[in-house]
């Protein structure tokens, strides 16, 4: 999940001719006077470029009537942290006189297996907080796109003045083209401002699909809303989630990894790390995963492998090799079933880890090792 920063999203909007406020990115206070003396008129809005939501309430948005005010705001914002995310860039934009704020987005409706266009006159707040009856929905046939009559319908329901109604059709078409051509999971404009009789995209939210990044190499190194460790694992292609607790789980298969963490939770343990080995039995990959787990500093790690496609013995070999190279700072419990299960268990026992066949038994031992009262 690649979540673009506001200014990155707006760069894409610009390429698709979506109307934007005049603005530019400042990476230091020194950039401000250049921007405000050049393309961006005052008064200005200064927006910290962070991926976390709720910037308005969090103090990440500032207003400035003078260059000095703007510089003060930028100076204050750069380096500040919002929900753990450090500000490195701010967007300096002209402040526009708003006659209204709308919402429009395109995303995937998994239930109907179709893209969905959502729109509302209640823009400017998180869409989750808008009443369902205030949100219009249009499902889109993927090979047909948004139809002209549907665009007209949306403009009518938004009760827009004529010039804005006309612009909205083009803007929806642009969103659709971004959604498809950029392989987005979500393209959202919130708020879509009404300025006079015209539309201006005041914010951007674009989430790109990981699996399609091979078509968009420019965004391959962008992140999502991930912890630094998750980001690191993501770059290595390891499915890795930090969950707050002390117990790390390495399993093969997302379902099995989740189920293992669930069993731990139900047995009174605190899930700490989800690490899915996937279908691999490549010792190098196993070692890498193991090293990632180490960085999360769990109190205890439980390895649960069902060897179907994956062979238990090669997984075990990978683990043991890694343990030899970097002896773990945590106790390890393993449970291994399936293809070459005896060989795998033997390899692990020889290396000194506790190895089970029964999962309930194994989990009870893991929770015991976590050692909470």
């Amino acid at each position, binding site marked *: 999940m690649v979540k673009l920063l506001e200014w990155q999203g707006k760069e894409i909007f610009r390429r698709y001719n979506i109307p934007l406020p005049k603005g530019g990115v400042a990476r230091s206070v020194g950039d401000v006077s250049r921007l405000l003396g050049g393309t961006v008129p005052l008064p200005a809005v200064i927006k910290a470029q962070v991926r976390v939501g709720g910037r308005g309430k969090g103090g990440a948005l500032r207003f400035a009537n003078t260059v000095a005010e703007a510089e003060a705001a930028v100076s204050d914002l750069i380096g500040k942290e919002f929900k753990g995310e450090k500000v490195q860039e701010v967007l300096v934009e002209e402040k526009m006189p708003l006659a209204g704020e709308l919402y429009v987005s395109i995303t995937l409706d998994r239930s109907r297996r179709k893209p969905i266009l959502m729109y509302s006159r209640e823009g400017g707040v998180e869409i989750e907080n808008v009443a369902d009856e205030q949100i219009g929905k249009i499902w889109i046939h993927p090979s047909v796109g948004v139809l002209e009559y549907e665009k007209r319908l949306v403009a009518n329901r938004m009760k827009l003045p004529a010039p804005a109604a006309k612009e909205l059709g083009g803007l929806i078409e642009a969103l659709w083209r971004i959604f498809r051509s950029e392989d987005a999971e979500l393209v959202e404009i919130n708020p879509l401002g009404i300025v006079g009789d015209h539309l201006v995209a005041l914010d951007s939210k674009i989430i790109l699909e990981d699996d399609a990044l091979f078509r968009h190499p420019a965004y391959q190194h962008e992140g999502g*809303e991930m912890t630094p460790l998750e980001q690191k694992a993501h770059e290595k292609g390891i499915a890795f989630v930090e969950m707050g607790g002390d117990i790390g789980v390495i399993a093969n298969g*997302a379902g099995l990894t989740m189920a293992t963490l669930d069993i731990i939770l139900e047995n009174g343990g605190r899930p700490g790390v989800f690490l899915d080995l996937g279908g691999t039995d490549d010792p190098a990959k196993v070692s890498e995963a193991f090293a990632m787990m180490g960085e999360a500093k769990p109190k205890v790690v439980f390895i649960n492998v069902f060897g179907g496609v994956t062979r238990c013995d090669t997984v075990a070999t990978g683990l043991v090799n890694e343990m030899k190279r970097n002896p773990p700072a945590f106790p390890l419990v393993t449970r291994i079933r399936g293809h070459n299960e005896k060989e795998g268990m033997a390899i692990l026992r020889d290396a000194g880890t506790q190895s089970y066949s029964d999962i309930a038994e194994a989990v009870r031992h893991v929770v015991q090792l976590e050692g909470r009262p």
Partner: protein
Amino acid sequence: MSVLVDGSSRILVKGITGHQGTIHTRGMKSFGTNVVAGDTPGKGGTTVEGVPVFNSTQEAVDATKPNVACLFVPAPYTKDALFETVDAGIPLAVIITEHVPFHDMLDMLYYAKANGTRIIGPNCPGVATPGGAKVGIMPNVIFQKGNVGVVSRSGTLTYEIVNGLKEAGLGQTTCIGLGGDPVPGTTFIDALELFQNDPDTKAIVMVGEIGGVAEEEAAAYIKAKLDKPVVSYIAGISAPPGKRMGHAGAIITRGRGTAASKMAALTDAGAKVAKFPYEIPSLVKESLR
């Protein structure tokens, strides 16, 4: 009886000359599956595991009349391979490939639907009918012929569960892996409908996980249409919202798709919901009593 595949299935393996394609062709054959052809552009005329390889699907179809395609094609080329499969008139395509962009899958889904091909997957372990045929990558040893239908969004977890069924003496009619992607070609409802219409299936095991509302929709279907017992398990009660738990589809967004919601819907629909996967065999036995 069984659903989707059986002893009469004739399998074409697309991408047979690749590492995965070759390994799993061997696995399918040792399961007793009738793998009739493979295809890889430029490798026509060779054989893999005794299976003739063709340059294109159409050539393979002309020569060997397959009725199921199994796709081991790298994600960037999967869409094209699926279109080729559909154009060749093959009615069932099982897509093993992981990381297929959902935008591609949308195109694939509608093209396949319009032309009468059913897709299973992508990012799935395939379909297996013990005593009939296996298409995909499920391990052979876990299965046993019987009367339980299994349908699941996950892979390894399902192997564990099927293995558990076998150890408890519960055989399967067919085991369907729907795959962990947000846009599956076949849904729980589709699979439940197949099992509902299969006289040999006496009970159904449904293994879901967090993300989306496919389990809730399946619950509505169970309540309205299904007259066979369903035992279900949902993975991910411990999953935090907003995090993608391995599968592209396993993510709780905007408060939707939680394990609790799915479990509640299934319980309400009259399904037995297992707290732990290893409870499933005894719940199935109860249901069959």
